[in-house]
């Protein structure tokens, strides 16, 4: 059996409220990072408040619809980002949201490695049928990474986001279990 949590560059691990809050507060200052991640207005929360959210989340205990991970590099054991899954148990679909807050780890394959771990977890461990995600058209780096991981572009919601006075599209992608399994065979795994 494969190690579900260990990729080639990163590993998925638990969320530590203290470490997470410290990093998130810093990452929130980076409005480019926020705008790549979400189309809600950028905001700045206190470290204390963010830590409370993380703790509250942990108190709720195990929920089969919700999975959150911290992402650490294998080489430096540095906390660089996060990955969250929202699962529809009835229709066996998961949505993924992920981000790398530490800019020096952008464009170097860390995101792709995170996504491969995510797919492995969704299809090998959660046994779901489909993995979905959304991104903005001004994020070509993410688009390339997701395409590399076998996601197909399934459409775009026209001009649903307003950035700097411009209307931009959101893109929607998905990969099915059978598509992912075929890719694994191709890799000889």
């Amino acid at each position, binding site marked *: 059996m494969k190690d579900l949590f260990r990729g080639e560059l990163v590993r998925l691990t638990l969320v530590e409220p203290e470490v997470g809050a410290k990093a998130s507060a810093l990452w929130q200052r980076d409005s480019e990072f926020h705008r790549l991640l979400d*189309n*809600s*207005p950028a905001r700045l929360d206190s470290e204390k408040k963010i830590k409370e959210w993380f703790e509250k989340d942990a108190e709720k205990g195990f929920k089969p619809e919700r999975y959150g991970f911290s992402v650490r590099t294998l080489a430096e054991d540095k906390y660089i980002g996060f990955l969250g899954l929202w699962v*529809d148990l*009835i*229709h*066996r*679909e998961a949505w993924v949201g992920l981000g790398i807050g530490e800019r020096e780890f952008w464009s170097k394959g860390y995101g792709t490695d995170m996504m491969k771990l995510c797919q492995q977890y969704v299809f090998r461990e959660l046994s779901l*049928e*489909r993995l*979905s995600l959304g991104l903005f058209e001004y994020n070509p780096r993410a688009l390339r990474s997701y395409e590399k991981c076998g996601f*197909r572009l*399934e*459409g*775009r*919601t*026209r*001009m*649903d*986001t*307003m950035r700097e006075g411009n*209307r931009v599209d959101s893109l*929607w992608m*998905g990969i*099915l279990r059978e598509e992912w399994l075929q890719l694994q065979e191709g890799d000889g795994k």
Partner: protein
Amino acid sequence: MLDIQTQLFESQDLRLGPIDHEKDPEIESKWTHDSEFTRLMDTDPARPLSAAVIKKQYEKLEKKVEEDKNLFHFMIRTRVDGRLIGKAVVQWIEWTNGNAFLRLGIGSAEDRQKGYGTQALQMLLRFAFAELNLFRVSALVPEYNEAAVALLRKFGFVQEVCRRSALERDGRRWDLYTFGLLRDEWQNGHTGQAER
């Protein structure tokens, strides 16, 4: 294709109105016993709900409307006798982006295919674009809901996304569509300038 109307909440045969906490729970409870309706309206599993449970849901809903400020909920009634026939909702409003999702349902089978959906959507779109000043609206529709697809297309909605195999019903997988309509497209249709 759309009539010019002065009243936001009135169409030829219908009226949008608030919840009637005394009378509506009984009727909506009946709808939940019809799995065809629940499967058209929702991706959650069908299950019959009592009037008491529906009543609680209404209270929760009104609280949510008040607190979240990104949701508008209407009951659809006939003008002639005020009978409840369905629900119309503008939800998940993102004020900074000017977008939202619409939901519409006609509860009993005998009230369907009478043009009520068309009238209700007409009011809902006018509310979303002319009252809330949204830039665009979306609707999520399962592949198998052909009536909804036809209704949305009638109003100029464009199928923008096809989430392949996103739903499971009756032991097989179905696609889930996202339809979108921009305010410009609605306005052009509204004033009859666009070709249909």
